[in-house]
């Protein structure tokens, strides 16, 4: 689950160099929209439509708030994505309300479980894992096999050269936002039955997703998945070592440790992260 959020970070970061602090809000919006639609549409349709709507929303966000900016300094990017995160949350609070909602389980119900290697898992967990796996595979195909995906990689590799060969960097940026929003929304839908959807869920997810992305190394979807799983495992494991009230502390501590020691991630190469470079 963190993995999908981490992938979302990756997509926008590599295409635009922006770390989107509002990434968690896409997840929340996906869940919220799907839940609303599910009241009169079958669940699969609702999820599909929700993902589509949030994708458009992500594109719109880029068009409205990023396309026209005069300054693209990192400080301003941080400020504006944080601002968006808050405003989207508040919007969600006033559009929906403070209540916690959830989608019905895709298969089975709340009490059903599947035995897997001795561990009991909810069928929804299988859904989540399956979705993450499929997303990663599709993303890899998209990036490695399609012209459009390659163009997106080109933008992150060398923006100026990409523009020179005729890639419309503006559209790429919009597409990256849309893609990342859509994936976030999808994540929001599949996890909704398990962990429910709440207007305030975004930031917590975002920072853990970021921890996962950092753990894996920014700019690499595969590594993000490994990072996501690692964060989840460490969280689960930490419960048996430290008081569970401090479970989140463990996750954040990992984030800090990673940032301080290996900001380019476990698998990444060192690049423009730390100051000591010319």
């Amino acid at each position, binding site marked *: 689950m963190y993995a999908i959020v981490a992938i979302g970070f990756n997509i926008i970061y590599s295409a635009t160099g922006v770390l989107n602090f509002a990434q968690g809000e896409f997840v929340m919006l996906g869940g919220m929209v799907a839940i609303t639609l599910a009241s009169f549409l079958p669940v699969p349709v609702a999820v599909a439509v929700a993902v589509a709507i949030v994708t458009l929303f992500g594109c719109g966000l880029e068009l409205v708030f990023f396309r026209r900016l005069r300054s693209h300094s990192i400080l301003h990017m941080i400020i504006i994505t944080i601002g968006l995160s808050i405003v989207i949350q508040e919007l969600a609070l006033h559009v929906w*309300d403070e*209540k916690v909602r959830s989608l019905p389980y895709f298969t089975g119900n*709340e009490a059903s479980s599947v035995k897997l290697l001795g561990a009991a898992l909810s069928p929804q967990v299988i859904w989540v894992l399956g979705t993450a796996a499929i997303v990663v595979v599709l993303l890899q195909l998209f990036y490695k096999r399609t012209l459009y995906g390659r163009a997106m990689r080109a933008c992150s590799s060398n923006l100026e050269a990409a523009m020179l060969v005729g890639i419309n960097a503006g559209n790429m940026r919009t597409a990256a936002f849309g893609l990342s929003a859509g994936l976030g929304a999808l994540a929001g839908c599949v996890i909704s039955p*398990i962990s*429910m959807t709440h207007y305030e869920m975004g930031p917590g997810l975002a920072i853990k997703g970021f921890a996962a992305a950092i753990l894996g190394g920014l700019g690499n979807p595969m590594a993000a998945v490994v990072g996501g799983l690692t964060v989840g495992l460490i969280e689960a494991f930490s419960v048996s070592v430290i008081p569970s009230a401090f*479970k989140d502390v463990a996750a954040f501590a990992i984030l800090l440790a990673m940032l301080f020691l290996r900001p380019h991630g476990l698998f990444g190469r060192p690049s423009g992260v730390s100051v000591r470079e010319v």
Partner: protein
Amino acid sequence: MKEKLMCGIKVAAAACIIGLTVLTTNGAESRTIKIGAIFSQTGPASFLGAPEAKTVQMLADQLNAKGGVLGKKVEVIIKDSGGSPEKAVSFAKQLIDEERVLAIIGPSTSGETMQIKPLCEENKMILVSCAAAETIVNPLAKYVFKTPQKDSQAVTWIYKTMKDMGISKIAVLSGNDGFGMAGKKQLEDLASAHGIQIVANEVYDKGATDLTDILTKVKGTAGVQAVVNWSIVPAQSIIAKNMKQIGLNVPLFQSHGFGNLKYVEQAGVAAEGILFPAGRLLVVDELPDNHPQKKVLAAYKKDYETRFKEDVSTFGGHAYDAFMVVIEGVKKARSTDRDKVRDAIEQLKGFVGTAGVFNYSPTDHTGLGLDAFEMLTVKNGKFAIYKK
């Protein structure tokens, strides 16, 4: 020169805005009774504050439609604290100093209540809190009351039920918020008195989305006969689901915070059989017609649900009680003098609220006895009174 000019502009701008606030705030009117309310309508505790604010607004409208009390209209000033204590303090000071309200209802959380408790006490301001923690009324403050049932009573109910079921070894899980921590303390304090042994004791993040890890740990602990969970949403539903998923098939007790059908819906079939103590608001339909609370509860439920198109929750009920306690105090004192109203509230006996029948006294500012609770369970996706 330019610097001076800029400074002048800034200062002028500041003065203008402050001037504006002065102008837009109405002067006090003596023809109305002002009651202040501080609820956490937004922020992490909004699930408490939002229904509370709605309830109080609704009650004030209803009361005024009927002509008010003592011939005066009631004006409710609701402030949204967002769950921040410093805002609660700021608002309390406003309500005390500027609005000179008769009483303050709320805040929603015990943390905020504790921050303004000394403030109200010093300024002789009636505070009727909607938060549950024991520390609000213990140590006793002269002007501070509360309406939710005591945690200790809820715990007593749970332990009594356990005894009847023959359970003696339990696991305690609690969320890391004020509610969870307060409940945890009561569970620990009262356990030995009821012959209960806590063999596992875990705290988790209140926003946690997956508790399988903790429950697995509990499952691994020998001799756990029941699990008590003390938290607020959404963990309450998650815990029920996770227990079923990992096959931890012992009875699950929840706190009185489980009082909303929504949580049952979220837990789905996993909610079946959950036991929890609660006021009777949730099972109003099951109550016999001659039950003293039946009329009040049914009316509140109907009014709230028709007006706001959402299920009534016990939290709104706490605000109902708080508001009505103040109004009853005014009626009984036949005065809007704050000290007289306070005395009247302290002497209030047999007032029927949503949480139970209130009997305040100089030593008890909670007013509710053990009978305020009913042990409830979930049956077919609905709340039902638990019968042995």
